[in-house]
């Protein structure tokens, strides 16, 4: 697709990408996922790693960011499957979107660029989202769906807690991670 070409032409490495208004967030996340796969193939010597990407170490927040996208996808799937829960779940989904975006903005711009470049499957720049969410399917009944969401929030909060305690990249990152952890923990109350 020509869309991937358009992305590679953007001089990401020479300027900071701002608050991700122009680059679709799913494109970046698609890049994160695909870059992980490409990295493991290159490590096995199966593929040529290609032109050098900027030497910026992988950031532990990348995995966490992908997990937050997974939560957004799970809420999307649950809201589509159970319209009776929609009003209750939308504010929670929005909170996870905010968390995901805050994490994306903490990533080094060169790292985001390298990830976007490494990805042949980045969707087009039109802002169109992939048609099907990647996340876990929603629970079969509203009750089962709420139980699944509570479990997902609990796991997410534990992962955010571990990331916050392990963080060595400065106070802003620590604060954002701690606040995300607290937000996720409090979501269990809203899902009770």
């Amino acid at each position, binding site marked *: 697709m020509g869309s991937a070409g358009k992305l590679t032409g953007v001089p990401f490495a020479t300027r900071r990408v701002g608050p991700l208004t122009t680059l679709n967030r799913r494109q970046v996340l698609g890049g994160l996922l695909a870059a992980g796969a490409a990295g493991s193939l290159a490590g096995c010597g199966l593929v040529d790693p290609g032109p050098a990407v900027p030497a910026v170490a992988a950031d532990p927040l990348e995995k966490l960011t992908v997990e937050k996208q997974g939560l957004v996808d799970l809420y999307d799937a649950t809201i589509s499957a159970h319209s009776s829960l929609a009003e*209750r779940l939308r*504010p*929670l989904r*929005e*909170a996870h979107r*905010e*968390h995901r975006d*805050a994490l994306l903005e903490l990533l080094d711009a060169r790292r985001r660029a390298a990830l976007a470049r490494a990805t042949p499957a980045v969707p087009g720049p039109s802002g169109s989202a992939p048609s099907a969410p990647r996340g876990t399917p929603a629970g079969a009944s509203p009750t089962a769906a709420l139980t699944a969401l509570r479990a997902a929030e609990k796991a997410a*909060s534990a992962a955010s*807690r571990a990331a*916050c*305690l392990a963080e060595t990249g*400065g*106070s*802003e990152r*620590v*604060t*954002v991670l*701690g*606040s995300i*952890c*607290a*937000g996720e*923990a*409090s*979501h*269990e*109350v*809203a899902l009770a």
Partner: protein
Amino acid sequence: MSGEADRLQLALAAENASVYAYGVIGAWLTGDELGWARAGDLAHRRQRDAVSDLITASGGTPTPAAPAYQLPKPVTGRAAAVVLAAEIETRAAAVWRSALGSLTGNGREVALDALVGSAVRAAQWRTAASPGKPPVVPWPGGSSS
């Protein structure tokens, strides 16, 4: 006094005020809500002790609790007690959030657990104050930046 020591003293003051407030709040509640108030009181006593230890360990002196604290509004019944509980937990979350970033090791863990505990209790009290309204706060203790 360093910024970190200031923030720990602020957290201690918030914990002392929370313990005082829960004493007032609990007097107006019954059943599950009284149980939440007791749990909140206990959590804040533990956090008060934990932050006092952090202050002492860093060479400071914990500021003693005041004999009484000015409440934002007089508490004259169950509804006002629940609203006050939501408010003190929201304030405690904010204080701990601002202490969190500069702390490392055990101090960071104390601050994070305090922030999480206050966020969860704030959500619980907000639900009690306005049933049916999802108590969603994306950034407990403050905005993302």
